[in-house]
């Protein structure tokens, strides 16, 4: 390395982020060093606080602060009878942005994938079962997992596992993306949308 040690270390840290290669990491490090000292302090404080204060919500495993339930779980207006299962907090945020869904969530933090060494035990699945046992008035589980092989397998696993606990288990429909032209939709999505067509 041609750089002074602290800079080399900084570049190394940036390289740990997904999709960041050697060049981008260098660019980020140089950018950071060009900031005012006060901005650098602020940045490092924010990183520290994020590491210290953010933890998983003990019920739904969404991110939360202050050592307690998250904002969704404590929201009186949310429908406690419905739980939507997602694989990541990012998917949760995407569903929240729709402003359509009023129920609760459960974040698995991954999908079953033996290739990546992830089995059901590595996901927040047993916690979901415990949650259902604890709050027996849950009436519907929505499985909002991606249609990938791993998503399908996880959906199947959960369907079988959760049947004794809840009367209604649903999954998201596959369809056209709104605002896209039919002619520009790929054949497979179109075929799936055709399969999942509904009565008018």
């Amino acid at each position, binding site marked *: 390395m041609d750089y002074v040690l602290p800079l080399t270390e900084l570049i190394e840290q940036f390289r740990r982020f997904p999709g960041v290669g050697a060049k981008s990491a260098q660019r980020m490090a140089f950018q950071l060093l060009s900031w005012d000292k006060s901005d650098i302090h602020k940045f490092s404080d924010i990183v520290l606080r994020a590491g210290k204060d953010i933890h998983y919500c003990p019920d739904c495993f969404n991110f939360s602060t202050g050592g307690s339930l998250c904002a969704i779980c404590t929201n009186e207006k949310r429908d406690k009878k419905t739980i939507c299962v997602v694989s990541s907090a990012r998917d949760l945020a995407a569903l929240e942005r729709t402003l359509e869904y009023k129920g609760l969530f459960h974040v698995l933090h991954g999908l079953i994938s*033996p*290739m990546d060494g992830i089995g059901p035990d590595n996901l927040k699945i047993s916690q979901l079962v415990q949650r259902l046992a604890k709050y027996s008035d849950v009436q519907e589980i929505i499985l909002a997992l991606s249609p990938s092989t791993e998503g399908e397998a996880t959906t199947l696993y959960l369907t079988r596992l959760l049947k004794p606990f809840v009367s209604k288990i649903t999954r998201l429909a596959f369809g056209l993306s709104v605002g896209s032209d039919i002619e520009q939709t790929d*054949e497979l999505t179109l075929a799936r949308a055709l399969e999942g067509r509904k009565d008018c």
Partner: protein
Amino acid sequence: MSLFLQSISLSRFRNYSGFNQSFNFHKQFVFIIGPNAIGKSNLLEAIQYASIHAENLVENEKQLLSINSPDDRFQIEANYSLGERNLKLEISGGASKSLKINGVKYRSAKEAKGEMLKSVIFKARESLEIVRGSPNKRRDWLNGFLSILDIHYADCLKRFERALDQRNYLLKSSGYKSQQSLIDELNIWDMELAKYAIPLQQNRKRFLETSNPSFQNAYRKISSVELTQGNEEVTSGGENPCLKYLPSIELNSEQDNEETCRQNVQTLSLEDNMRNQWLEKFQNNREIDLARYQTTQGSHRDDFAFQINEMDARYYASQGQQRTCALSLKLTQLEKWAEHLEYSPILLLDDVCAELDLNRQKALFEFLPKKSQVFITTTHLSSLPPMPADKYQIINL
């Protein structure tokens, strides 16, 4: 309607490096004649390069990606017609990699799939490998072609292979798991595999069954000459060639299934019934899978046989019979694809004559599809092609 390649110009493509060369084609049958290593196969390869060929969608994709390599700075321009429509295809490699059809730019072969030239290629040695080689050669051919015909098949195959990988990883890590969680997880992957295996199996079966009339017809036409010639092998006119599906997991016939469905009080659907059957047989194999740390049965182990009088041509047929099988398979493929496309793709025959004597060449040429444009490379022509003079042209390299 058929696809007709009118001209192709190459610059810096393989042998044609450094200079431009253009070829005009104006006949249905084009004979490309020249000694070995003069680049007649390269011309054929360029035609193949400029086309979506029947063998494999993934290959087609890769071909266009491989233009990325800086050594492959070449340009191909192909002009062809389909019915009333004229299409100009421009491919350039290297840094300015691009694919244009009638001036419209496409990002990939897949995207341009609908517009591109379609071809079926017969390369004597490679095609013979489908008949004589290990099961994976036949499986790859079948998967490649069915994936092109049916996007659902391609999707099922991709998903099956992914689920299979996952299951194999699970088997390899089985030692670290409790018995119960291992069984729970295996059950999931078994069901995922079944979901894709059933349509794969049904598609393969249907395809091979419906291919048989065309395969038998081609085989008999080409080999009838061997009978009259009879100087190399003796073949009987009573030969009964057949493509036979050999699934790794055998299911009851559909009629049997329908019967079971009718008898079943719970009235299982046909799909459910097949899935249950598949799962039962699949799970019977679990002990072996666990012992070997891999999935030992399933769609990834399917095969099909070229049978002649119910004997497997891979083991029991003469060279001549095997060659005839390979050629008949390609002609069947052409016919099947034409059915699907509703027009005839181009047929590329690389060095087919080298392996056939004059009479068999004659039989082959007479049998060649009446609609497709056909390109034939050969080192020499023993006599004039057995077709009207206005039907063919000869290009000497």
